[in-house]
Every structure is written in C-alpha cells, then in structure tokens.
C-alpha cells in the first residue's frame, strides 16, 4: 500500500461520525420490533410442530384403543 493510502487508513479507521438525533430511540424501536417478530416466529413454529405432533399422538392412542377393543 502507498504511503498516502496508509495516512487515509490511519485517519479513517476508527473515525467517528456524529449520529443523527434520536438515533438511540430508532435503534431501540428496531431492536424491539425484531425481537417481537422473532418471538412470534418462534410461537408460530412451535404451533406448526406442536399441533400435528399432538394430533399424531391422539391418532396413535385412538388406533391403539381400537385395536384393543377388537
């Protein structure tokens, strides 16, 4: 790398820019929205797996009872 580029690197690596006003609020809102979305997704996934699993277990029980009653 050339020397003038090294200087640019030294000046800009780690350079801080003033954040817009209310940046932190915007960040916290975004984070909260993501977390809500992630929770909802997890709930939907749990239901999508849980309901068929429960139905399968019920069917197995009914089938077992049916076989015993014969």
């Amino acid at each position, binding site marked *: *790398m*050339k*020397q*003038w*580029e*090294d*200087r*640019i*690197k030294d*000046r*800009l*690596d*780690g*350079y*801080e*820019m*003033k*954040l*817009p006003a209310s*940046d*932190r609020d*915007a*960040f916290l809102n*975004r*984070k909260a929205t*993501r977390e809500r979305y992630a929770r909802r997704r997890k709930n939907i996934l749990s239901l999508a797996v849980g309901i068929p699993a429960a139905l399968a277990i019920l069917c197995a029980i009914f089938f077992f009872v049916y076989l015993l009653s014969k």
Partner: protein
Amino acid sequence: MRTEQELARLCTAGDREAQGELYSLYASRLYALCYRYVADRDDAQDLMHDAMIKAMDSFKSFSFTGEGSLYAWLRRLTVNVVIDRLRQLSKLRLVPLDSTIEPNISEPEEDDVDNIPAQVMLDMIAALPDVRRTVFNMYCIDGFSHKDIAAAIGITEKGSASILAKARTQLKNAINEYLKRTGR
C-alpha cells in the same frame, strides 16, 4: 468503565446494560464505517443498526483475543452486513471501465493528506462509484486481501486489483483538486 473482555462477557450473557454500553462505545464508529461504504447517511444508519442487532444476537461466536479484538470483530461483522446489502441491491455489478481517467496523476504527499479534514476525505471516498468505493474500502482501510474481496463481491482477484487501481486514480484526482481549490 468495563474492560473489553468484561463487556463482551456480559453481552454474551444478554445483559441489556452492557449492550447499551456497547452501543455507546461503537455506534458512531460503525456508522462512519457504513457511510464509507454506502455514501448515504440514512442507509448507513440502517445498516449500523442491523449490524449492532446482529452482533448482539451472535456474541457467542466472538472470542476475546486481546484489546481491540472486540472492535475488530464488530468491524468485520459490519462489513459483511454492508456487503450483503450491496449485493442484494445489485450495487456491485461491474460498470464498464472508465477510459477517460488520466493514468499518471501525481501521488499526494502524506502531509497533504493530513491537511484534509477526515469528513472531507470520507466524502471523497463516498463519491467513488459503488464498486470502486467498496474495493478501496475493503482493501485499503479494512485490510481485506484481493482474494477475500473477490470472494465477497463475486469478481476475480485480477478484477479487484484493476478496480482498485481505478479507485486510486480517481481518489488521487479528487485529493489534488481539493488541494488546488483550497490552496493548501
């Protein structure tokens, strides 16, 4: 104030206060980094937020290797977030090489570069076309190799070197023009 290692440990455990401290410490640096790549303040803010959220969610993959390793990890993660976004927006498609650029432009002196305010320099880099800006940032400032750049943005190593040469020429031009305009 906590040490980097302590901060990382608490963030890994999901401590909200530590996450707030992490944000206070690094947000403005990562914002400048994103701006360097996308040249737009609103996009840079969005990307910085995405990167921070991703970092807070994936702290388990961070391992402390000494002072500065936390920022190095955050920087790498942020660059990856930015590159992914640029790729999604198809902003890294190659443009035809500009043949109008003068090939032999004098190298700026180190002192000349020191006399340019950092924000002006940042704006000069931001003014480069997307692909040139990305390659220049990755290679010259964030320390990626041509091999890494080629893999990240889907070009060849030779292509990366060639784009870097164009970016250098354009930047030298901008620096020389600025120095002439301000009489430095």
